[in-house]
């Protein structure tokens, strides 16, 4: 079966989020006073064909390790549709 897996990648705590800071300032400048802070990360969706949702998650985790996530500065979370 084909599973859609969503991967949410964000910078680790303590790593400077230069994009987030710039967006924050820009939104504040446009009058969004309720805004406290912004973090900008990546949203990657992969479709994998595996026997189970669990396998799909494992496969996606491997992809994160292999390429999608730079573990020196980033952290990630995975959601499998239908899991």
């Amino acid at each position, binding site marked *: 079966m084909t599973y859609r897996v969503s991967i949410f990648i964000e910078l680790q705590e303590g790593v400077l989020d*230069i*994009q987030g800071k*710039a*967006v924050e300032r*820009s939104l504040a*400048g*446009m009058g969004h006073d309720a805004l406290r802070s912004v973090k*900008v990360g990546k949203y990657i969706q992969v479709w994998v064909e595996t026997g189970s949702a669990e396998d799909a998650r494992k496969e996606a985790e491997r992809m994160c390790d292999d390429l999608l996530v730079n573990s020196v500065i980033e952290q990630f979370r995975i959601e499998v549709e239908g899991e």
Partner: protein
Amino acid sequence: MNTAVIVFPGSNCDQDVMHAVAGSLGTKVRAVWHKETTLPEDTDFVILPGGFSFGDYLRCGAMAARSPIMKAVAEHGRRGGLLLGICNGFQILTESRLLPGALLPNRTLNFVCRPCFLRVESVSTPFSSLFSKGQVVQFPIAHGDGLYTLPEEELKALEDRGGVVFRYSDSDGLTGDDANPNGSANNIAGIVNERGNILGLMPHPERASEALTGGEDGRVFWQSILESFTKGGR
């Protein structure tokens, strides 16, 4: 003709554009900081220069398009005033919806900087009137997000109305895929709005405005603008 060059934080071709315009035309050029809310009163021609406004963070040109000065810039364009966006400036124009479409990352996903041939597709704009139709000119490119895209029907409409002013080509004017440096739809390098007063282009005419640094094809571009202005008084 009084030219205003808008400077955003992260713009890096503002000085170059001012140097090229002043050097090619000898007309008055002023820098205007993005936080201003009005253009100098006698402004005839507005340029959004290249660079990495706001670091190109989020999307290229997105934050600059929301800068305070942009209301006045859009108003200038709406009144029919001459408005030019080069490279990052082009991205700012599409992000401001002053021009249709969007610029996506180059298909190689790499930044590319090199001299580039362009075929002049339309000479009925104030920016290209001194070229001849089909002429091949050389302006350098230097961008990471230059793939111009537009939904199919809109693309057709743009082509039908002659909105494409420059197309990437080879030195013979052939516009094959080989001559496309970034994967742009129909090899599009520069487009003009319906009214013909707002031009966006990825290549850098200011980098082709002196024999010593990049050639002189860009001088014709600047002279076209001056001549159209002098004639039409826009």
